[in-house]
């Protein structure tokens, strides 16, 4: 156990160092102007460590006040991460105005549904309510990133490598947090030390990805594509859909007739 605690302290120090490095890199490459919410998230996450340290030092590990402050800070960190994800979604899709109008509504609606689902399948006792809320938010973030990439895949949108690496880091960390919180919910006491250790390891992996992503200066605003007149969509897309539907019906009919015949 002592070895784990020592290792955890070492990893924690490494994570703080990497976070400071990432924040410095964001400022140095002027990428904080491109990703203000991501920079805000890194700054809050960076401040989380000294704040927690001070809290536990003043109120002690077992005090209710320290626990409330710690979870409050954690809530702030996750909210900042959610905003960073929203910023990434906006950077990828906002230049395609029609798709973006559809995507942000879908993202919000599905993220909301995921939150409700996460609450519904959780144990609804108060001590674990904060843990459940934390997991619900992490799950909503992961789902939002997946939906973003489904949109990207479906509409064949080009994603900058920076955005890709940032998204992978955010996605993996959120997934890991969901799994970690789920295990913690089942084996709360015996798993706590390992929970911290694995969480720090996942965070370090994400930090390395983000550092790699922002190692170069990014263009402040991506090039806007030349949009087609509004009427073109209304003229052509219903026609294509109609034909696709007719083609489907034909195929379906053909299949049914032949299936009956055979």
């Amino acid at each position, binding site marked *: 156990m002592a070895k784990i605690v020592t290792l955890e302290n070492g990893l924690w120090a490494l994570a703080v160092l990497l976070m400071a490095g990432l924040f410095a890199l964001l400022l140095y490459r002027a990428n904080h102007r491109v990703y203000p919410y991501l920079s805000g998230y890194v700054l809050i996450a960076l401040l989380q460590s000294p704040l927690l340290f001070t809290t536990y030092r003043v109120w002690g590990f077992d005090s209710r006040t320290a626990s409330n402050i710690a979870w409050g800070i954690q809530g702030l960190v996750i909210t900042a991460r959610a905003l960073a994800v929203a910023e990434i979604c906006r950077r990828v899709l906002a230049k*395609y*105005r*029609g*798709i973006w*109008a*559809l995507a942000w509504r879908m993202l919000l609606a599905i993220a909301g549904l995921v939150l409700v689902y996460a609450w519904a*399948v959780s*144990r609804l006792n108060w001590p674990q309510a904060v843990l459940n809320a934390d*997991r619900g938010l992490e*799950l909503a973030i*992961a*789902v939002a*990133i*997946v939906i973003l*990439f*489904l949109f*990207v*895949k479906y*509409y*064949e*949108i*080009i*994603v*900058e490598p920076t955005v*890709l690496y940032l*998204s992978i880091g955010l996605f993996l960390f959120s*997934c890991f947090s*969901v*799994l970690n919180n*789920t295990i913690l*919910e*089942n084996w709360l006491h015996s798993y706590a030390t390992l929970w911290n250790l694995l969480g720090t390891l996942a965070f370090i992996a994400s930090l390395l990805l983000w550092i790699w992503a922002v190692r170069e200066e990014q263009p402040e605003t*991506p*090039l806007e*594509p*030349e*949009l*087609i007149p*509004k009427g*073109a*969509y*209304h003229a*052509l*897309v219903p*026609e*294509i*859909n109609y*034909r*696709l*539907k007719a*083609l*489907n019906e034909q*195929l*379906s009919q*053909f*299949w049914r*007739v*032949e*299936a009956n015949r*055979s």
Partner: protein
Amino acid sequence: MSLSFYAFFGLVGILLLLFVWAARKSGKQERTARALEECGRGHVGHLPQIRQALAETDRLYISRKAPAFVARRVRQERRRVALVYLAAVRDDFQSLLRTARIIARLSPEVVPLHEFERVRLTVVFAWHYQMVRLQLRAGLIPILGLDGLSDLVSGLSVRMEIAMNELGERAALAAEMASSLDGRGPHVA
């Protein structure tokens, strides 16, 4: 272990698979401009030759005149041709889909109903296509029924060709602009 334990692990597993599938590179973007150019002159243009190759009268004539092994060989070839043709019709379907996606992508306004409808149609088509293909492979389906499919695709293709020429130029220009976003080369998902 509770229900939530399995539910969350399952959900994360599905999310991981979906993310890997959605984020992996594919050559679609490079094909976008080509797809627009080709829209309107797809594989269905070869329908008369395919019809000739698959004509029932030919089959009857061969089964009467040629030895059994030749007739069998011809039947196998006809089935192979039908399968290739079915795949080509699917390509045409996908080309139309891609065209619709590009139009939606470059449009300042989209109708969610149309977009969801197209996703539904894609899933249904994929299902029916696989069913027909399996039956063709098993030798359960005569190949004549494919005519109707091709007519539908070709009908639309011809009517859209003129409109697509203009949009194709715009889309190709947009794709070029997007590709030059990053000097290290774009990631295409």
